[in-house]
């Protein structure tokens, strides 16, 4: 089996150097963030831009939109603060809320596309090669591992809870049970994370560098795609 077969990257966005993707994500986020309140057409163009990238990389944008929609309650919370504070008229506040919502939505969508098409270890490698301090990279790496670990522990405890839950659910009882489960989940996750860390240490992890088999090499195609994407973003900014 060849190295290439083990590292299958099936489309252009997956193949793209993660450093270029990070650069493009930052550029996209900045351009979206500085778009004025009245920039509806520009927002539409940004959305089409993301749609085109998703289509080219054979990713379902509908799924990403659904996942991003999970964050809408937080956006509503943000909206509440806009409506409660400030001296603007209600119409201006509504406009501001919608603009902020659209910007956040677009940036989160871009972030989803980024992580759907980038292996996490290549992302870490990219951070390292962009001279992000190794401590910060290690923190990101562990945070990523522990999110999944935490989710596994939640699944295990919820199964244990369900297997011993009988009769009709009462909200107060459920709240009491969950309040007992949360510290148990935290303790178990912490203990397991310590065991995993011990396993990493025992196989030579030196607490400093994250090493992977991948060697990032900037290709001509990466530079070309990066320049083209930046050009498109500039065109959108100028034309709309």
């Amino acid at each position, binding site marked *: *089996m060849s*190295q290439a077969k*083990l590292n299958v990257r099936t489309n252009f966005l997956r193949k793209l150097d993660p450093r270029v993707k990070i650069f493009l994500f930052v550029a996209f986020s900045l351009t979206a963030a500085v778009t004025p309140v009245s920039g509806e057409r520009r927002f539409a163009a940004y959305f089409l831009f993301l749609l085109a990238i998703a289509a080219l990389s054979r990713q379902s944008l509908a799924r990403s939109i659904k996942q991003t929609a999970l964050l809408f309650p937080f956006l509503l919370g943000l909206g509440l603060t806009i409506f409660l504070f400030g001296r603007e008229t209600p119409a201006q506040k509504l406009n501001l809320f919608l603009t902020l919502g659209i910007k956040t939505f677009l940036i989160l969508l871009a972030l989803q596309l980024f992580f759907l098409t980038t*292996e*996490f*270890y290549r992302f870490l490698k990219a951070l390292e090669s962009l001279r992000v301090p190794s401590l910060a990279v290690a923190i990101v790496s562990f945070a990523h*591992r522990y999110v999944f670990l935490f989710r596994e522990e939640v699944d295990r405890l919820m199964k244990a809870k369900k297997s011993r839950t009988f009769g009709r659910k009462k909200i107060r009882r459920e709240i009491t049970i969950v309040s007992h489960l949360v510290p148990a989940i935290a303790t178990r996750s912490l203990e*397991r994370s310590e*065991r*995993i860390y*011990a*396993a*990493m*240490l*025992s*196989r*030579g*992890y*030196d607490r400093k560098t994250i*090493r*992977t*088999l991948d*060697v990032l090499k900037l290709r001509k195609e990466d530079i070309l795609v990066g320049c083209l994407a930046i050009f498109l973003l500039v065109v959108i900014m100028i034309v709309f």
Partner: protein
Amino acid sequence: MRDKVLEVKELSFTYPDQTCALRGVSFAVHRGETLAIIGPNGAGKSTLLLHLNGVLRGPGRVEVLSESVLRKSLRQIRSKVGLVFHDPDDQLFMPTIFDDVAFGLVQQERPADEILERVMRILRALGLEGLERRSAAHLSLGEKKKTALATVLVLEPEILVLDEPASGLDPGTRRTLIGLLKKFSMTKIIASHDLDLVAEIASRVILMDAGQLIAEGNPEAILGNQDLLEGHRLEVPLSVVLRKALKNIPL
């Protein structure tokens, strides 16, 4: 006399919650032998194993191939002592089985071609070929145990340390594992409650309880001593009982 590959002298360890796990443990392991560490739950077996490649360090001395386990020698020690954890889920943390098995070699900064060749060789040897792109989360316990073993064997350690290697396995998988362990020629240290497994593969046995070394000797002497084992919440394994019974039958 074969040369010593590992020596533990007066090793003690207390966890931050003040649980004393090891109290002045001393023993030596010789090249090529299979040492089994037995004892009830909480005897300190797993804690002791974690000291053998420096994951934990307590007062006392651990020497691997005549080199003390110190911070500066950890990298070298860990390449010589391969530790397989009790729960394979703790050992398999990478996105794919290939990445997990390659992890140690990548940390050693081996060339990519060598890593690929060694990983595929060990996966083939353990019957895990074809699973390299899969996530460990989707494997059976037997496959997980074998993968955890592969993550260590790929490093070609001189000393293989296994914590409860057969726990939770079905008889068939357990038998396969015992067969594999018998094939390996390197020095092995195995902590286990499975005394039938110990009787089958160990060349020497250490009994631990409450962080102390209680007894040390050949498998027949330790595993055949009913009072000693029952005094430390263990039982004489069925295989030893049967062997004794067969000896007493006049043929």
